[in-house]
């Protein structure tokens, strides 16, 4: 199963607890991939410029409703994570943390090391408000998660992949939100699917959670 993580979005952090539970109950090989962005809200005007929009008032009311709901959902996510809602709203550039995940893969990291890294990365970014948008910040996260940094500078300078190009390919493959899970070419967006994924990994035994 391939897991797509976006270090700028709380749902990827929240996914960890359910994913750890799944891994403790089912044997599964995981490939971890970072995402730099998500599709997000695709709502938009499909009218040509200059054309009056008869639904302008409706759209404004709906956007306001959506904003209220998103604010409340942020509060709920933060409640589960034990952080303040203001901490959850912090804007993070996930570039260096994403490189860190690629570094783990390059170094043949074990499952627990990925869990430690992702947890440390989110905690540093959102709970501590630390710098995670530089090589220095990345090294702090790697040290916090007790993962090696020897060779990292060389890797970043000479071997690191083009994450922007990788992001394009991810979108082209149909993965557009995080966390995402791809199993047997089937894409699942959102941690809410993990019960069904677990059922699939158990070879569809028992009643499906649907």
């Amino acid at each position, binding site marked *: 199963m391939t897991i797509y993580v976006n270090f700028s979005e709380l749902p990827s952090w929240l996914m960890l607890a359910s994913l750890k539970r799944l891994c403790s109950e089912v044997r599964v090989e995981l490939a971890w991939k970072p995402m730099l962005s998500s599709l997000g809200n695709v709502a938009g005007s*499909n009218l040509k410029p200059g054309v009056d929009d008869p639904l302008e008032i409706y759209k404004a009311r709906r956007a306001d409703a959506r904003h209220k*709901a998103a604010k409340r959902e942020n509060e709920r996510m933060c409640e*589960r994570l034990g952080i303040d809602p203001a901490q959850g709203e912090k804007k993070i550039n996930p570039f260096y943390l994403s490189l860190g995940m690629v570094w783990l893969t390059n170094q043949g990291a074990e499952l627990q090391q990925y869990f430690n890294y992702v947890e440390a990365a989110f905690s540093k970014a959102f709970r501590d408000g630390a710098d995670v948008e530089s090589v220095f910040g990345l090294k702090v996260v790697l040290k916090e998660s007790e993962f090696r940094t020897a060779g990292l500078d060389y890797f970043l300078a000479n071997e690191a992949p083009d994450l922007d190009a990788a992001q394009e390919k991810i979108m082209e493959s149909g993965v557009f939100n995080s966390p995402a899970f791809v199993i047997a070419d089937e894409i699942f967006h959102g941690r809410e699917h993990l019960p069904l994924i677990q059922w699939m990994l158990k070879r569809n035994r028992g009643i499906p959670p*649907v």
Partner: protein
Amino acid sequence: MTLRLEVYIDFKSPYAFIAKDATYQLEQEFGLEIDWYPLTLNIGSYLGTAKKDNSGKVTESSRSPRQWLAVKYAYKDARRYAELRGLTLKGTQKIWDSSLSAIGLLWAKREGRVCLKAYIDDTYDRFWKRELDIEDPHVIVEQLHASGCDVKGFEEFLNGEGRDSHDRLQGEILDRGYYGVPTYVIDGESYFGRQHLPRVRWHLEGKVGALPDIAYDVILSESTPAS
């Protein structure tokens, strides 16, 4: 204290369709009566518009590639859950105006719970089999009649009080902060999407313990009526 649960639905939403039986299960589990409301989505306003012919070929579209990506995934996602439940969920050929079926829901509510449930079940079931033109007033009358509702006066209601009530309600719903379906509301707290059912249960149980995470983890009991 009497538990009160409001649920907002739209017949043209595949996600609301597959959430229906799990939602009914809450009535059995908590001994409550759900207060159903129509939330008529204007999908074209935020996801663009498109039409397909009988072969599935797109004949008209104002959607951006990003909107197509989101729409195609949504149908595929809903369909995989529907198939596991034995439900038929055929992709729609256009974006429907579901307001007539929504006004039908308001009428069926007046007729009592048995009629309302029959109307909701049958309208969902047949619409997603592509057996209903929910933009045809006569079809809505037939649906209400088949659900055991007295339809005398419905056509006047559809063009008068029912339409006014529906349109007014849509504005009020948005102003309360509800914008998608299914939305569950308890004590003014709203939860959008069936992935929130663990939280809805937690809320109905008195918020004991920590707030649960979202999940599609519903196991339908054998006594839950199939669609």
